[in-house]
């Protein structure tokens, strides 16, 4: 077994052990719930039992999930998924772009270029407005 796959299986094992521990704790609380006990008395606070169960589950799940998303294994896998999705997106966009070009339709890139030209023009207008405002500012007079 390579070092990389041994590290990965160790991480999966840790994750499984943490999950198993949580489930055991949660089941203990669940089993002690009066709703599962025939001798339950009228007026027993069932809501509080559910709440306790939920809080234990929430706390431990949160810890496990945070450990999981902070692990190098998760980061590497999410990175791979993003890579695959980028390849797919690029392939799909190129195919659409080629099709539209062949059909003599304007493509998304053409429209983006047009928008960029408009934005550049707006910047130039703002620069000119700026210069006009500078010229209209009262000039500072220097005493000789």
């Amino acid at each position, binding site marked *: 077994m390579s070092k990389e796959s041994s590290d990965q299986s160790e991480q999966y094992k840790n994750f499984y052990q943490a999950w198993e521990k949580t489930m055991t704790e949660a089941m203990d609380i669940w089993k002690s719930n009066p*709703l*599962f006990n*025939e001798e*339950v008395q*009228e*007026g027993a606070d*069932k*809501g509080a039992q559910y709440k306790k169960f*939920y809080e234990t589950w*929430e706390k431990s*799940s*949160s810890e496990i*999930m*945070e450990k999981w*998303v*902070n692990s*190098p294994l998760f*980061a*590497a896998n*999410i*990175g791979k998924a*993003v*890579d695959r999705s*980028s*390849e797919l*997106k*690029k392939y799909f*966009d190129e195919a659409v772009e080629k099709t539209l070009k062949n059909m003599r339709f304007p493509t*998304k890139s053409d*429209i*983006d*270029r*047009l*928008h*960029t030209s408009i*934005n550049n023009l*707006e*910047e130039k207008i*703002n620069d000119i407005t*700026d210069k006009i*405002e500078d010229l209209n*500012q009262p000039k500072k007079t220097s005493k000789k």
Partner: protein
Amino acid sequence: MSINYTESTMREAEKIRDKFTKAIELTITDPPDVQIGTTPHDVVFTENKLRLLHYRPVVKNPQAVPLILIFALINRPSILDLKPGRSVVEVLLSKGIDVYLIDWGAPGDEDKHLDLNHYINRYIKQVVKKVKRISGSPKVSILGYCMGGTMAAMYTALHPEDVQNLILLTAGIDYKVEGTLTLWGDKENFDVDKFIDAYGNAPAEFLQSGFIFLKPVENMISKYVNFYENVDNEAFVENFLAMEKWLNDNIAVPGEVFREFIKYLYQENRLVENKLKINGKLVELKEIKCPVMNLVAERDHLVPPDSSLIFNDLISSKDKETIVFPSGHIGLSVSGRSLKGLWPKVADWLIERS
């Protein structure tokens, strides 16, 4: 094992059903129209998607040195003016500060080429010039939040002559500090070139799901359970819906600036290592000599506190202060505790130096 179906159990079940129906109505089937970012303002400058907002002063003679708020390029800046009573802008105005805010707008695919140089040397530079002209003040104060704080630090280092005071709010400076985002953004895990070359901009959905996965149980389950439990508390519901509106109003980040942030900062930590160049000019944090207030959130899960704390050691300012506040990344700007206990203090600090 049998379940004891008593009358009280039935009553309990009905109560649960009613609360659940109300929660579903408020969040999914019939959500109320919640308005955020409503403090009166005028739009005094626009360029491309950028809008510069000038908040109407609420005192007769506001402070002479205006303050510009620079938010991150992720999500909307309305978090700084969420709703009446939950607004940093409101606190600053009530203290007599002349407040401006940059709303970057939602970038389109045509903006994918916008880089750090454009944001720092064009957009922020233009805004500073405009604010100086409107206010008549030779300098401005700048407050940058998160990624906006990092950019505010870069601007101040490159144009120190413009900045009277600098306030950083949970700004990432040292990207070698361990954190989930640093791990995900690492060269080994994330090929940012491939990603941006394919997508153009960093899509809003990509960023949003990343933030949700930082704390999956809290963001996908606990938050809604908490809402269900408080669904009869009017004030809680109002705040929750306003926050949800802000959290779900996501925008993309222009591709080039995203690429530079990931590559130059997350992967190469160039700002701290004094190697970051913008338009050929080195960004040297030691060029910052103005008074600095560094605000850090103790439980920040997006920008680890240590990533921000280093800032005051890298600048030349003599008048510098750090406040580590017991809150999270967002809580620093919206929690009742920070709005009462932190922001009036920040305003006073600013007034003393304006």
